[in-house]
């Protein structure tokens, strides 16, 4: 019993640590002052201003668009790559894996500049396409890195057994391997989405023509003071995510009951 209480306390403390700044953000989205330092009374005005602010809404749109697309594309690309890499012979596996590490271990700014040089080299117009491509470049390695441990844990003979029993490689992939590594894929997808939403440097260098995302807007404000409208937006995004999660949770619960679990 004691150890259970201890576990709960520990989990609670860590989550408190992770959520404390978010609580601050939410509280200050109702602050009647532009300044972060002082509390000047309760207001809804930042929320009202948010919906009048075409630039921030446009940035939100691009942020979500790029995050969803790059998460999906890099998950597909990364999952297949991971399966392929896992089945490669020693040396080429090593080389591929190490190359794959490059975008992870390079400082963001270096990935950003090198990609910018590449796009310039190919004379591409900077904008949504270049931003999306660059996001896929730095998201995919993370997908691979979260799928690979799953593959390592999987029984290697599982797929072979399936194929011995007459399954085509594609069928074995779909029915045996993918379900087995699904948690890794989901983690990878979540990670890609998260990294994409949070990225500033790579987006900044690889966009243009008035395509910008929330990070760029936030950073550009950081010299003159972050507009609390951004806090209001973050609060709304946060709350809607929580609601979405609760709905999903309720649904799976209901499904489980219906299925008699």
């Amino acid at each position, binding site marked *: 019993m004691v150890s259970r209480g201890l576990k709960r306390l*520990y989990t609670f403390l860590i989550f408190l640590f*992770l959520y404390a700044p978010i609580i601050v953000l939410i509280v200050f989205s109702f602050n009647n002052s532009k300044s972060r330092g002082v509390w000047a009374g309760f207001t809804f005005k930042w929320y009202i201003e948010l919906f009048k602010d075409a630039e921030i809404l446009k940035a939100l749109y691009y942020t979500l668009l790029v995050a969803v697309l790059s998460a999906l594309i890099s998950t597909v690309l990364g999952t297949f790559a991971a399966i392929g890499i896992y089945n490669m012979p020693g040396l080429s596996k090593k080389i591929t894996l*190490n190359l794959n590490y490059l975008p992870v*271990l390079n400082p963001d700014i270096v990935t950003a500049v090198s990609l910018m040089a*590449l796009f310039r080299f190919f004379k591409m117009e900077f904008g949504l396409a270049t931003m999306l491509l660059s996001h896929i470049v730095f998201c995919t390695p993370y997908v691979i890195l979260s799928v690979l*441990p*799953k593959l390592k844990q999987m029984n290697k003979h599982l797929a072979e057994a399936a194929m011995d029993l007459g399954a085509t490689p594609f069928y074995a992939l779909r029915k045996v391997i993918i379900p087995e590594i699904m948690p890794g894929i989901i983690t990878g997808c979540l990670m890609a989405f998260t990294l994409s939403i949070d990225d500033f*440097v790579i987006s900044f260098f690889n966009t243009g023509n008035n395509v910008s995302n929330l990070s760029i807007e936030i950073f550009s404000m950081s010299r003159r003071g972050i507009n609390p409208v951004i806090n209001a937006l973050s609060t709304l995004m946060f709350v809607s995510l929580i609601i979405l999660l609760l709905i999903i949770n309720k649904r799976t619960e209901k499904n489980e009951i219906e299925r008699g679990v």
Partner: protein
Amino acid sequence: MKMKKVAYPYILWMAIFIVIPLFLILYFAFTTGDSQNFATFQFSLDNFKRFFTPTYLKVLGRSVNLAFISTIICLILGYPLAYIISKAEPRKRNMMVLMLVIPMWMNFLLRTYAWLTLLGRNGFINFVITKIGFKPLELIYNDKAVLLGMVYNFLPFMVLPIYTVLIKIEKSLIEAAEDLGANKIEVFSKVVLPLSMPGIITGITMVFIPAVSTFVISALLGGNKYNLIGNLVEQQFRWTGDWHFGSSMSIILMIFILITMALTSKFDKEKEGGGGGLW
């Protein structure tokens, strides 16, 4: 195995988007000239000569030191959490994993900013401390604040890979060990820990690398008093405009990280060999 073919599209992708850009960076690192005008580039080792002076080496040392400490803290804090989550019932488990990820959906600059409100001299924590009757603490603009920022930002990257590995460990293995008379500590150190090694290694790399190259955290929470290598790289690319020097510093940073990884992956293999030929 035919399966390796499914990686071919990605290999082509890597050639274009990883290998070519890498050569561009190498090219920058070994040349000098006007960064915005390729025609002026000339081969030179000056960038490296400039880096290997005490001033810059000191910055590199500091960065590695802070990143190392924060990685250790993340591991110590993160492993128990990953373990607790992996032992929870499935529905709660998924919920907690999501709760780890959700904070990252709020812009990290904003979240790091929010720490200022908590840690500042007249911030919330000091407010509570003085109310209880203690002296206010210096919580911000020092190395401890930078470490806190690193742990705060990168902890989920440690927990998630370890968790992913832990839930895959077969219960029967643990039961078998218990049946054979192992106590809780033995089960953990002889079965669970070795089996979770791949996750730990991934976690370490995923925390150490962003920590060693961060520039926002040291700027916001460290008060820019002591720059890290990430700040220097950032400065070259975004303020000074000397992309050549910036590139050579990144190359050095990359080599450094590669060495670290080579060391950890060696460790990884040995353990895996002992863990029953998982590779």
